């Protein structure tokens, strides 16, 4: 496979990014005195940095490679992940859920669920999140290795090693503050690099009209310039996109994902928490274009080499973006773009590792080993960053030969519990009537439904495979129904028990920051 030849200027730019991000991260390790400083940055984060961090925490190598491949295969419909799946839930969360979670003064989403429902629900979701995050760290490392191999000819262990060392150094020492402020730098590099790829690619393809003409000539691309596809489309039927992605997966991700929510909990005030989410929504208007357009450009320019995706063997889709980069970008620009991809990997990985550590210490370790000093929990949190990184590396090696499309793997992981999590969060935050027993029943029913639907393809064959978007929707519905029915059959909580846990029963004053 053809790989990029980095010239000295390119290498200098990549090195400059890596040194800057490490130095910046280490600079912000100063002033970490307790676990609150480490896990919530002492609640001192500015809204603009959190907004940028939210964007890059959501976009890693898996999205860059996966969305370019899927953009080639399916076209504009992939932008729905950042439009209906992001703008809609992010704006709703900005004005309703985030300021409320900030006021509740929690460190983690399972901590809120534990206070609203019971310890079992908290422990269950904390365990699942921990497993999910380890899986996510693995998928991030695999996809970054795929990218660096295709782009630079690096081997698996070299790619994983460089990524793990850079991220491990400042994430272990600096906690959330180092993560968020280095993410802000990575966000700028990512936008510049991705924009340059799109601009140069469009120029080569003859502009937007040239792109449309080239793709329009193919006989299998009739839906490529539509965001909303027919109801019988095999992969992205519009009802599943609207209900599964827009109403379940998107909201669950932006309201219930610890890696996302945690940085917002570290802002200075409720208003800054809200502003960070709105800023994220503004930035997210351009990201779908930056991530999906390379797939369409690749289709227009390299269809002869890559061919029809229905004939693709394992891993061919992962070549779309590297092919574009290797063939289009001149010296200097190549360095910026490679730096941008490293920025995406670093920002994505540090967020998940930092959040996994927060979650395990707050929701699991403190329950098992209570009554220790704050310094002890801080040390455990820092040690867990290293443990999660190493576990992620081991998991990456394990899944590397199995998962062809890492993006789909990521979505499959999420669907097992995103629907039930969202149902419990919505009922917990918005209604007084949801009870502990109801939450437990809803959780079991929802996760059971997701597991059953996901297992269908293995038990009954691929013809009965259920799209992950439908799995998310039906597990959400099952969990919602189970929680409502059992809650109505059990004794409701009194108002004092729910103060600060339900949107309509606020705490009496804002916690001190």
């Amino acid at each position, binding site marked *: 496979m053809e790989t990029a030849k980095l010239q000295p200027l390119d290498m200098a730019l990549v090195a400059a990014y890596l040194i800057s991000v490490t130095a910046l991260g280490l600079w912000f390790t100063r002033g970490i005195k307790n676990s609150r400083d480490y896990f919530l940055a002492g609640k001192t984060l500015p809204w603009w940095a959190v907004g940028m961090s939210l964007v890059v925490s959501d976009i890693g190598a898996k999205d860059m490679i996966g969305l370019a491949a899927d953009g080639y295969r399916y076209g504009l419909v992939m932008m729905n992940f950042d439009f209906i799946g992001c703008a809609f839930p992010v*704006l709703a969360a900005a*004005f309703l859920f985030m300021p409320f979670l900030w006021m509740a003064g929690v460190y983690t989403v399972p901590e809120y669920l534990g206070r609203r429902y019971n310890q079992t629900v908290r422990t269950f979701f904390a365990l699942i999140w921990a497993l999910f995050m380890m899986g996510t760290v693995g998928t991030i490392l695999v996809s970054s290795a795929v990218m660096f191999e295709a782009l630079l000819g690096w081997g698996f262990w070299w790619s994983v090693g460089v990524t793990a060392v850079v991220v491990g150094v400042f994430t272990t020492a600096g906690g959330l503050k180092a993560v968020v402020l280095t993410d802000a730098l990575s966000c700028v590099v990512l936008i510049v690099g991705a924009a340059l790829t799109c601009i140069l690619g469009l120029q080569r393809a003859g502009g937007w009209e040239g792109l449309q003409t080239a793709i329009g000539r193919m006989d299998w691309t009739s839906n490529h310039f539509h965001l909303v596809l027919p109801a019988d489309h095999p992969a992205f039927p519009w009802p599943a996109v609207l209900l599964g992605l827009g109403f379940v997966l998107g909201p669950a991700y932006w309201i219930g994902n610890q890696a996302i929510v945690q940085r917002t909990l570290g802002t200075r005030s409720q208003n800054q928490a809200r502003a960070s989410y709105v800023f994220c929504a503004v930035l997210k208007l351009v990201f779908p274009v930056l991530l999906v357009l390379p797939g369409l450009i690749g289709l227009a320019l390299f269809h002869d080499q890559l061919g029809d995706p229905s004939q693709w063997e394992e891993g061919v889709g992962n070549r779309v973006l590297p092919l574009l980069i290797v063939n289009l970008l001149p010296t200097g620009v190549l360095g910026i773009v490679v730096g941008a991809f490293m920025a995406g990997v670093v920002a994505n990985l540090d967020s998940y590792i930092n959040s996994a550590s927060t979650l395990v210490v707050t929701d699991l370790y403190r329950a098992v080993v209570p009554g220790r000093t704050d310094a002890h929990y801080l040390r455990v949190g820092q040690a867990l960053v290293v443990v999660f990184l190493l576990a992620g590396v081991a998991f990456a090696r394990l899944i590397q030969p199995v998962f062809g499309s890492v993006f789909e793997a990521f979505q499959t992981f999420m669907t097992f519990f995103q629907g039930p999590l969202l149902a419990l969060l919505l009922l917990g935050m918005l209604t007084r009537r949801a009870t502990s027993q109801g939450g437990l029943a809803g959780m079991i029913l929802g996760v059971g439904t997701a597991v059953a639907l996901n297992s269908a393809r293995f038990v009954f064959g691929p013809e009965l495979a259920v799209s992950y978007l439908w799995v998310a929707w039906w597990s959400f519905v099952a969990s919602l129904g189970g929680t409502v029915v059992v809650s109505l059959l059990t004794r409701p909580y009194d108002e004092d028990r729910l103060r600060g846990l339900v949107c309509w029963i606020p705490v009496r004053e804002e916690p001190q920051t």
Partner: protein
Amino acid sequence: MRTLLGLLAAASGAQVGAASLGAKAAFVGVFALLLLWLLFLPARLVDEEAVRQPWWRNTRFWAVLVTLAQIWVYAYWG
């Protein structure tokens, strides 16, 4: 179980045999509802009561702008 799953998958598809215009309207409609919600949101939920912010620091203004952009995106590209 096989029958149940088959019915479920079929029901999911069957619920929505709508034309593409209806599909586009559904997406635009979601953002139109969000727009209405944002416009009529009580001031206490957006911290506008204490100090009047200039427009460029008003989170509601930017949220409305993003929502309008999304309505245009789905109306044009849907």
